[in-house]
């Protein structure tokens, strides 16, 4: 296992011009990213939808590299998204999964069968042409450039140290630096999408 923040620092060196959807890693990525106008920190619009949202964006913007940092609890709510992504095969889509074995933001309760499930195996059998598994950060650091250089869709399963939160939600430190409206306005301007 490795820390999410350390992983994001490794990724930042290879991010290039990619559009990044940091998912539940946004509280770390916000302070590491050097190109926030190409970041889409959404918070948690509705659990289970990050993979489909990121896929939709990749499909809409085929000339942009789209990188998602998904989480296992979110993906498990809509595993069927893997089949859709594998059928359409967006060549610009890079699907990283942060797996910490638990629902960290609700106190650390275990995700079903968390110690035995293989998400990279599920993605591979769903039809992703390239899948990886890392529980060692150095190994990821050695391969990330190669991973991001190959055509998508690519699935990267990473074992991440849980950061369990037990504070009442109202007492937690706010990590967002922009409102959701501002995030969406910024990415549309950056991508040249007409304001709606």
């Amino acid at each position, binding site marked *: 296992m490795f820390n999410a923040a350390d992983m994001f620092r490794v990724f930042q060196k290879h991010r290039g011009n990619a559009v990044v959807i940091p998912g539940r890693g946004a509280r770390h990525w916000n302070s590491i990213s050097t190109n926030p106008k190409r970041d889409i920190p959404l918070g948690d*619009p509705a659990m289970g939808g990050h993979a489909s949202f990121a896929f939709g964006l990749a499909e809409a913007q085929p000339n942009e590299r789209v990188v998602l940092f998904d989480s296992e609890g979110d993906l498990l709510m809509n595993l*069927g998204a893997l089949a859709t992504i594998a059928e359409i095969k967006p060549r610009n889509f890079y699907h990283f999964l942060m797996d910490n074995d638990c629902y960290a933001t609700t106190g650390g309760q275990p995700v079903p069968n968390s110690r035995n499930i293989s998400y990279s195996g599920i993605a591979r059998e769903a039809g992703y042409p390239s899948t990886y598994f890392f529980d060692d950060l150095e190994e990821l650091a050695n391969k990330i450039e190669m991973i991001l250089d190959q055509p998508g869709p690519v699935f990267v399963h990473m074992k991440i140290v849980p950061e369990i939160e037990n504070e009442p939600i109202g007492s937690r430190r706010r990590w967002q630096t922009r409102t959701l409206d501002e995030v969406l306005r910024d990415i549309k301007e950056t991508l040249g999408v007409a304001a709606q």
Partner: protein
Amino acid sequence: MNQQQQALLSPETVLEAFNKNGVTHVVSLPDSETNWLYQLMKADPTLTIIPVSREGQAVSTAAGLAVGGKKPVVLIQNTGMMEAGDSIRGWGLGLKTPVVLMIGYRGWTRHGVNSASDVANFTEPFLNALGIHYYLVETNDDASRISVAFEEAERTRRPVAVLVGDEYHGFNR
């Protein structure tokens, strides 16, 4: 096509409305009643069909497409609409996604005589609970409401529903 079928909502009419309103992607979980519409859509080079396996997935996919500048429509049934409730709330209303939800109105009878658990009983109350405006389309004569829904979705930056009240036979020949 007989006289009765001509009075129904034809798949060509629905496709024409999609094209007129610039739809680029149809995010769809098909059912047996929409198979002919599916074949028409597949043959249309201006449309990309995105197959999903659960209706909540359709709404978050549409949100990503819309943020990326495309014009999706979601094609699902009212049973799945209820499954998609939290996704409609979060990815639809929360992200201010201007998308039309074309919803097969399974169980729609016009006279309200249904079994207690029939999905038709809950369809409009469900949309009202979420504050989603909707239009009922039963025949080709109602088809202009589809464009009204697209225009409203763009203007209000909200999901707008079209209830297809001809689900049992409208898309078949």
